[in-house]
């Protein structure tokens, strides 16, 4: 019997099915707990799900590649989900068109702030050069951020982790901070959160208000492109 269970485990641990199912179940459980706890920020379902899954992988000595072979089906949906942001964007198009120039101005300044503040604070705290370069594109969506990181000499997979952490920070604290500072406009809130914390910030903005979500999705898309152009220039300018 003992041997059978081991055999089944050895088989299942290698299949995409187990890790895909586990990813969904752990996320559902984390989300349930989060809702039950009255949306306590510390119990953020993404954070909780990641911690639990990391512990499971470590406990079972499963390599990340084996895990990702299953979880990639969830990861893949990031593409179509990004395209789907066209729907809220379309809904608020009239409002957006009126704000076009202010949005472009805020995009350029916000994008540069995202890169420079990370590099400067990191430098002040003596982080090594490779980590600073991996930090520079942290505000934007994972695939572009990893590409930029590689281009300027960072560590792409470390960048992916820093991107997710940034997204969680923006999703956890961004809205609360803007409320504290009395930013009432949903378009302003959404744009700022989406620009600084990409898809995870956008997911949060969609929960605040559909209009905030639309502007967050727009900011995320535009900042991805802007940061891709800015980071190599700023890295050169800073002499990193």
């Amino acid at each position, binding site marked *: 019997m003992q041997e059978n269970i081991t055999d089944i485990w050895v088989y299942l641990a290698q299949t995409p099915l187990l890790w895909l199912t586990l990813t969904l179940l752990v996320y559902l459980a984390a989300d349930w707990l989060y809702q039950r706890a009255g949306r306590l920020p510390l119990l953020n379902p993404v954070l909780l799900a990641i911690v639990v899954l990391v512990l499971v992988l470590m406990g079972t000595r499963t390599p990340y590649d084996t895990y990702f072979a299953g979880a990639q089906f969830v990861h893949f949906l990031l593409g179509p989900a990004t395209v789907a942001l066209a729907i809220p964007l379309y809904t608020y198009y009239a409002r957006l068109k009126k704000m076009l120039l202010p949005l472009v101005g805020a995009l350029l300044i916000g994008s540069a702030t995202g890169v420079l503040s990370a590099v400067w604070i990191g430098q002040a705290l003596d982080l090594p050069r490779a980590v600073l370069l991996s930090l520079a594109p942290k505000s934007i969506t994972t695939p572009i951020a990893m590409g930029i990181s590689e281009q300027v000499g960072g560590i792409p997979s470390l960048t992916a982790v820093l991107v997710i952490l940034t997204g969680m920070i923006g999703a956890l604290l961004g809205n609360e901070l803007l409320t504290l500072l009395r930013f009432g406009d949903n378009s302003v809130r959404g744009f700022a959160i989406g620009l600084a914390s990409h898809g995870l910030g956008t997911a949060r903005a969609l929960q605040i208000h559909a209009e905030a979500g639309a502007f967050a999705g727009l*900011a995320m898309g535009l900042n991805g492109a802007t940061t891709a152009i800015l980071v190599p220039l700023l890295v050169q300018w800073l002499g990193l």
Partner: protein
Amino acid sequence: MIRAFALLLLFQLIGEIVARTFVLPIPGPVIGMLLLVGVLLASGGVPDFLQRTAEGLLAHLSLLFVPAGVGVIAHLSTLQGAWLALLITLIGSTLITIVITALVLRLFIGQTPRA
């Protein structure tokens, strides 16, 4: 649902092709998103089937980041040495970026005459 997925994937695919062809720094899905907005504007509305699937997908957007986040497991040793400095940097930088962006946008909106 299948129709909506086919449509979303088609726009992602077109976006990827455009990004590769013109060597743009913008990722394919973002180009796909912008193209879809254009098509929706031209056609004057969101079909029901697309609305429903998009809402369903976006309602669980944060789940989609879990697999990449679990990748932290490969960097635990790097993070162990510098986790506090990294955390301060990320929190500081993210909050500064959010506040500056919101301030600038509010300032600029104030200066633009409303139509």
